[in-house]
Structure formats: C-alpha cells, structure tokens
C-alpha cells in the first residue's frame, strides 16, 4: 500500500486489489476534531461519496468505478484513473488546447448540474485528463444533490476562484471557456441564470467594490 496523495480530508493509497490497480481513499480520523463530530463527518462522507459518483456516471460525467465501500474504516476502493491533473495540464499546453480543455470541463459541470449534482470542490486538482483525452472528475467528498441555483453558483464560483488563484495568468479566458461549455450542456437560459447568480455570490463576498 503506497500513499500517493495526502489531501486535507482523506489520503489516497495505491493498492492492488484482486489483481487490479486501485485507489483506496481513506478518511482518517482528524485529531483536531472531537470523536463524536469526527465520526459523524467521516461516516456521512464515506457513504455519500460512492452514491453520488454513481449518479455522476448516469449524468454522462466520467468518474472512477467504485469497487468497494467500507463504512467502519471510512474507506472506499475505486478505480485508479491514469492521467494528469488539469491543474498541471493547463500550464503545460497551448492556449487553444487550454481553452478546449476548459470548455470540455464546463460541459461536464453543466451535465452534473443539469442532473442535480453539485460537486462541491471544483478545483483543477480534482479533474484528471486521461491519455485517451477523457476528463474524469474525482473527489466527490463534498458533493451534494440540489437543483437550486445557489449551490450551482457556489460550485462555479469556486471553479472561478481556483482559476484566479492558481492559474491567474489566463483565469479570465479559461473561465469564459468553462461557461461556454456549460452553456452547451445546459442551454442559454439556464446558463444566464447561473451567471447572474455567480455575480450575486461574488458581490456577497466581503468588501467587493461594487456591492450595493
């Protein structure tokens, strides 16, 4: 068992399970939380994540295949997705390719939202570009089900913020491409509503210059 990523919430281990290369995602107890709260958060997230990952597939969004869920130890065994994080890819490709990827990412986000799935942690670290050109969304640990505009707006707002903080050089054009792809999946009308919502969320932030 090899630790390949130590995230804030869970650790990912590379493992061989029934002759398959798999990822075991384990939510470790957090020492800073009291056990009652810790158990509650870990159990809820471990049960919830595989369900919503499955829902995402039904919505046409590639996600890892789930092989096993172990609630007691708060771990999930799932497919190892070969590829690179979009976070790394964006800085390494041409402008045209970058915008294409962003547009495609936007399309997938649109499919999620159109099917009432909110990812909850849409950062470029949580999207993997496979060698076959497929984008796979991972880490649904903070996802929720909702068809309301507010969480959709918050979802995309985080995507925008990730682009601004991590890929600030081309954040603007990238986010525009994301929204173009989003519109392809969800249509003009719905996208307009979400765009207005994102603006509203931004203005709700503290000390925004043009807040009324």
């Amino acid at each position, binding site marked *: 068992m090899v630790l390949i990523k*130590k*995230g*804030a*919430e869970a650790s990912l281990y590379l493992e061989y399970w029934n002759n398959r290369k798999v990822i075991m995602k384990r939510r470790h107890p*957090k*020492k*800073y*939380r*009291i056990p*009652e*709260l810790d158990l*509650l*958060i870990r159990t809820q997230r471990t049960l919830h994540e595989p369900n919503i990952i499955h829902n995402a597939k039904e919505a046409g969004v590639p996600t890892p295949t789930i092989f096993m869920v172990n609630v007691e130890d708060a771990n999930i065994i799932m497919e190892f997705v070969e590829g690179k994080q979009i976070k790394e890819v964006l800085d390494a490709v041409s402008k045209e390719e970058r915008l294409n990827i962003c547009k495609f990412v936007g399309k997938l986000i649109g499919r999620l939202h159109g099917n009432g799935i909110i990812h*909850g*942690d*849409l*950062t470029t*670290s949580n999207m993997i570009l496979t060698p076959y050109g497929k984008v796979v969304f991972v880490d649904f640990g*903070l996802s929720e089900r909702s068809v309301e505009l507010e*969480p959709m707006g*918050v*979802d995309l707002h*985080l995507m925008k*913020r990730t682009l*601004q*903080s*991590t890929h*600030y050089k081309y954040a603007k054009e990238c986010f525009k491409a994301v929204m173009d792809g989003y519109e392809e999946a969800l249509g003009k009308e719905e996208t307009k509503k979400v765009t207005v919502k994102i603006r509203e*969320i931004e203005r*709700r*932030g*503290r*000390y*925004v*210059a043009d*807040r009324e």
Partner: protein
Amino acid sequence: MPPKNNSSDNYCLGIESTADDFGAAIVSFRGKVLSNANDAYLPKEGGIHPREAARHHAEVAEKVLAEAFEKASTKPREISLVAFSQGPGLGPCLRTGATAARALASYLDIPLVGVNHCVGHIEIGKLTTGATDPVTLYVSGGNTIVSAFEAGKYRIFGETLDIAMGNCLDVFARNVGLQQRIGAPFGAVVEELATRGKNFVSLPYTVKGMDLSFSGLLTAAVYAFQSKRGSLEDICFSLQEVAFSMLTEVTERALAHTQKPELLLTGGVAANKKLQSMLKLVADEHDAKFCVVPLSLAADNGAMIAWTGILAYQSGVQTLVDESYVNVKWRLEDVDAPWVEGK
C-alpha cells in the same frame, strides 16, 4: 521625500481605527514595536454602532496618540512616516483615524501611507513570528480569510460567505445573555465557558469548497440554548468545536493545496487557545511551522498598521493626501504587495 536620516533608525506612527479599537503605535523601520497604545469602544448594549464608535475614537485620539509617543520616548518630530488604516472597515471609524493621520503628516511634512487592514494583520504576524511565506488564517470580528501570497498579492483561498467567525461568537454571546468586559471580549468569555462543556450538541457544519458559512451555525447555536438542548457550557463547547473544525478543515486544505512551509494564525480570534491547538495539529501533519501572532498584537492595533506602512513605503508606495480617502470595502486580494518577495 526620503525618510530623515538623523539617527540610525527611522520611526513610523501607525493609526488604526477600523472598528471598535482606536490604536496608535510607534514602530522603527527595523521592525521594533516601541509602543502600542489602544482604547476600545465598548457598547452598552448590542454591537458596534459605527457613529458612536467614531465619536469614541475622536474623543480618545489625542490621549492615545500622546500615550504612543510617550511610551516610545519619541517626539512627533522624530517620526518620518505616518501610516493609517485605510480600509476595509466601518466608514465613520476609518475616517476618524484617516483625519488624524492626514493632519499629522501634513503638519509634520512627512509622507503618508494608507494601509489595508487585512494586510496589516498578516504582516505583523510575519514580523513577530518570523514566518516568511505562510498560509494565513486571519480570523477576527469582521473577517475570516484563508490566504497565501502568490504573484504579487495575498490571494484569498477561502473566506466566509456571510458573517465572520468573531462576529458569530459575539452575536451568540449577546443572544444568550453573556457580558463582555475590557480585557475579556465575548470570544474569551465563550472560550472560558467552553472549557467546562462536556456534552457535544450537534450543530450544522457548513463548508462549501474552500469557503465557510457561519450564519446558520449561529442561529442553530442560539436556538439550541433557547430550547435547552444542553447547558450553556455545552453549547459554547459545541459551537467552538464545530466552528473551529470548519476553520481548521479549510485551512488544512489550503495548506495541502499550496504546500507552504508555514501556517500563520492572526487576528483577534487568534487569541483562542482551542483554535490554536487545533491548527497546530494540522500544521504538524503537513510539516509546516505553526506560527501564532502574540496576544498583544492579535486584535486590531496601530503597530500592524505602522509596520505595514513601513514595508509599503520602503518599496515605493505612498499615499497623497488628495488620494487618502478611505475604502470601506478594500479587498485583501486587490492590494499590490511589492515588498513581499516572490518565490
């Protein structure tokens, strides 16, 4: 005009008047805090009334400024720079401090620098702890921000979507009938009660990606008290556990994402020992050095404004009196910080 170089070191007067505190401090260009005077407005009931707080500031300004000079054994003519808190904050309060700063700078004929209050909290934390490139959790009555320096600015990785952490504790404390005193703000009162709480009362835990929301938690905590779901001690304990777990989770995620070598805790709520201990665990886990601003410089103070003013001035930033109007919604990520070295 370069600083007058009549001694081996130069001094800056910093004026802070963002919210309930009026502070004045003298800091040397080498980073020594020579004095740090303060007088807080304490409302008889309810929260900070901006106009009343500004009135308080105007009343105590002379006294606090005199104290700052006296404690530093410095005369006004010996300082070579005036820095003031230009925002974000409450308009009437900011204007009071800005007026004093403009008057002094003009009278003494020395440069003026308008400082972003949030940057002040980060810079004083870095100065006093030796942190150089931290992920910062800045938590106070008015702000809750997780930030880190990237490409010329302090970028915001996560922040509250509604009320600030300190505000949540303050309003909760007022709603359950607690009293604050000079030296024991609501946060300290809740912290003390929480140490005696034993039973966990479940309350809503709201983390949205990197952002946080405290308003629902506040309502639920007040309601838990009113409907007697636990003793006041238990609810204080549970409120802190949930709120601080949320803060710690988001801070940990920023630390994991940026891989910065330090974790800095600053702002008024940094005084909370429970929060400190939780963040320390996370810093250790990610091999980051845990740094916390000293208690005397955790809450709003003039020293952080003076020090940030010095840093800005030395990298060529200056604020002309004509352009020194306050900016009540000045976001942290809109401030150029040329004095911070990029990696």
